[in-house]
């Protein structure tokens, strides 16, 4: 396909269109609202389903094939917070605390962006390895820890003072937070049970998956667009950060994935993962460890800027890159 076609395929996919519908609904001030419980239920379902799928795939993957990509993923999880942090301190002159908070978000990964990439790969017949979800789990944690460490120096005070951020609490939150428990737990369950025993649950977790994702992206559209008005305050610099850094990370990810021996689709999906910014695990941990960091800053960047950017433009770009690096 030509780049133009690739872009079209992405823009015309149900998930992206559903996201657009959510944005439109907010713009016309519709009273459309998802019940809190539906949002929570869909994220539980999606995270668990990713995990189960990845685990089942892992159970039939020769371990050797997995180690390379796993190592590269962890490495990327340690490096990307540093690059983001450097950019924020150096170029944008943001204070350590907020820089560390943002670094944690941009080092970590957004599960939904990951899913959009996998879906795109299937639609364009560039499938990715079945065990990719296991890599999501590996990428999510380290980056957040590094990000907090970077901010730490400045707020060491906070550790002692009660009522302010707690280091221990944050680490516990990162590792036992619901997104990790569902993702890692799902991988373990799927891996231990094995492909065959998972068969009976597939109609629910596999067949229903794409549709549930579409519904979720409609809600994401409603949520993300509520952040748009914060963009003005955020300013052009944040927009620059929220698009350039993901692109840079994406290149790094696709390149690393290719070196690690992932298929074209796998490299593209890994690139998307690295390019994406967390907005579930990271915000929770940052609120605990760095309560003085500005949520308006990191939520607006990750959710209002980077999420839509990757969903609409980033993903096709990372797939194009994977083709180039691959061939």
């Amino acid at each position, binding site marked *: 396909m030509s780049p133009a076609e690739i872009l079209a395929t992405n823009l015309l996919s149900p998930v992206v269109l559903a996201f657009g519908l959510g944005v439109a609904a907010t713009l016309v001030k519709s009273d459309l609202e998802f019940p*809190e419980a539906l*949002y*929570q239920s869909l994220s539980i379902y999606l995270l668990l389903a990713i995990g189960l799928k990845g685990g089942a795939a892992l159970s039939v993957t020769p371990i050797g094939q997995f180690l390379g990509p796993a190592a590269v993923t962890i490495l990327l999880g340690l490096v990307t917070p540093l690059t983001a942090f450097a950019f924020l301190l150096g170029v944008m002159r943001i204070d350590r605390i907020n820089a560390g908070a943002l670094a944690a978000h941009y080092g970590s990964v957004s599960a939904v962006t990951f899913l959009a990439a996998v879906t795109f790969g299937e639609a364009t017949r560039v499938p990715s390895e079945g065990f990719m979800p296991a890599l999501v789990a590996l990428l999510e944690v380290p980056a957040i820890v590094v990000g907090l460490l970077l901010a730490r120096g400045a707020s060491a005070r906070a550790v002692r003072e*009660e*009522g*302010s*951020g707690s280091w221990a609490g944050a680490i516990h939150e990162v590792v036992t937070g619901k997104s990790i428990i569902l993702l890692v737990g799902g991988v373990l369950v799927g891996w231990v049970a094995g492909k065959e025993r998972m068969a009976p649950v597939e109609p629910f977790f596999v067949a229903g998956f794409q549709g549930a994702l579409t519904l979720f992206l409609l809600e994401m559209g409603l*949520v993300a667009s509520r952040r748009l008005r914060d963009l003005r305050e955020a300013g052009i610099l944040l927009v620059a950060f929220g698009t350039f850094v993901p692109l840079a990370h994406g290149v790094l990810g696709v390149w690393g994935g290719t070196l690690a021996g992932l298929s074209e689709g796998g490299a593209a999906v890994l690139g998307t993962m690295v390019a994406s910014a967390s*907005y*579930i695990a990271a*915000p*929770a941990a940052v*609120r*605990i460890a760095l*309560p*003085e960091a500005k*949520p*308006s800053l990191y*939520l607006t960047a990750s959710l209002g800027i980077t999420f839509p950017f990757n969903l609409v433009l980033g993903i096709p770009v990372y797939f194009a890159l994977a083709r180039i690096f691959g061939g």
Partner: protein
Amino acid sequence: METKSATMVTIVAERLLRDRLVEKIRALGAKGFTLTEVQGQGTRGWQAHEFEGPSVKIETLVRAEVAEQIVDAVAKYFEHHAVIVYLSDAKVVRLKKF
């Protein structure tokens, strides 16, 4: 049935603080509490309830002196967190229950 005075302490806070605040008020001697999920807007703007879940309202009926201490404990969170606390009078039966 004849009623006696107690103090109702109401805390509205971002979900993040829920468990910490509950532990705190029990430690300070509250014998019980009631939790309600709420949405709120204050000087910090809307709580991003999509991610952390809704904010929470914690109501606890206690004796005046305990109320004092709870307010002081909550005050620690004023600087960095979305939280308010206020007191009101209530009449209860079974005073010793509170």
